[in-house]
């Protein structure tokens, strides 16, 4: 167990999430991609705490903040999807973009 290994894991999760967020059409699936990216951030923050500065709580607090950010992202995402769905009956990013025109 080394810092490098954990950071590799974090990078892999981040990259998979990025792929999803970029390639998916459905807003909900894009949100899942974002969640996965944040998941990678959680791993990175926790491993930095453990391998670099375990005596201070900063890393742990960072993880807490990131988890909160994730819930905020979810809540707002769902609210927006519901709004879009009600207003225009769309749930994909492409069609939502067309709404601007």
């Amino acid at each position: 167990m080394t810092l490098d290994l954990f950071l590799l894991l974090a990078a892999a999760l981040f990259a998979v999430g990025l792929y999803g967020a970029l390639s998916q059409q459905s807003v909900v699936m894009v949100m899942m991609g974002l969640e996965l990216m944040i998941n990678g951030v959680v791993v990175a923050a926790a491993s930095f705490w453990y391998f670099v500065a375990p005596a201070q709580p900063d890393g742990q607090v960072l993880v807490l903040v990131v988890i909160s950010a994730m819930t905020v992202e979810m809540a707002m995402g769902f609210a927006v999807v519901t709004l879009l769905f009600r207003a225009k009956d769309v749930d994909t990013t492409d069609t939502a973009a067309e709404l601007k025109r």
Partner: protein
Amino acid sequence: MEGLLFWSPAVVAVGAGIAVFRVDSMARATYALALSFVAVGLELLLLDLAYLGVVTVLMMVMEMAIMAVFMIMFMMNSAGLMPMSMVHNRRGALALSVGVFLSLAAVALLTPWPERRGTVPEDPTRSVGTGVMETKMLVMMGVGAVLFTTIVAALVLAASRSRYDVRGGRR
């Protein structure tokens, strides 16, 4: 042994993460993501972060359980009974994310990370607790305010009208 403890959840976390975008069924996709989070929770346990690991599992499984409801509510073909593709610009996304992975990995492996300062405290949970209540209190108060704003904003956005005002109060 330690290697196994690290690698098996790691493989599950990434594998389940990939599965999220490869399965047709919304329920499977959501719970694949939940599985990925559970695996990450286990990784946190390895880092002596018992509280944060278990809380990650708790929060994320709860979130995914709710997410599944939204997925099935809003997506066509939610059970994945009819295979269909809902992606755009797949190749570009793939290239970009591989590139990002490689550069992140390079940074991770090549950067001379600082030496470890200090040791893991006796009880990391207590340390984060006192951190939140003492030095980092302002941060958490900010988080609290943000969460409250989120609740209000999300409700205002999502509710067309209150469900309960139709018949005037109690139903």
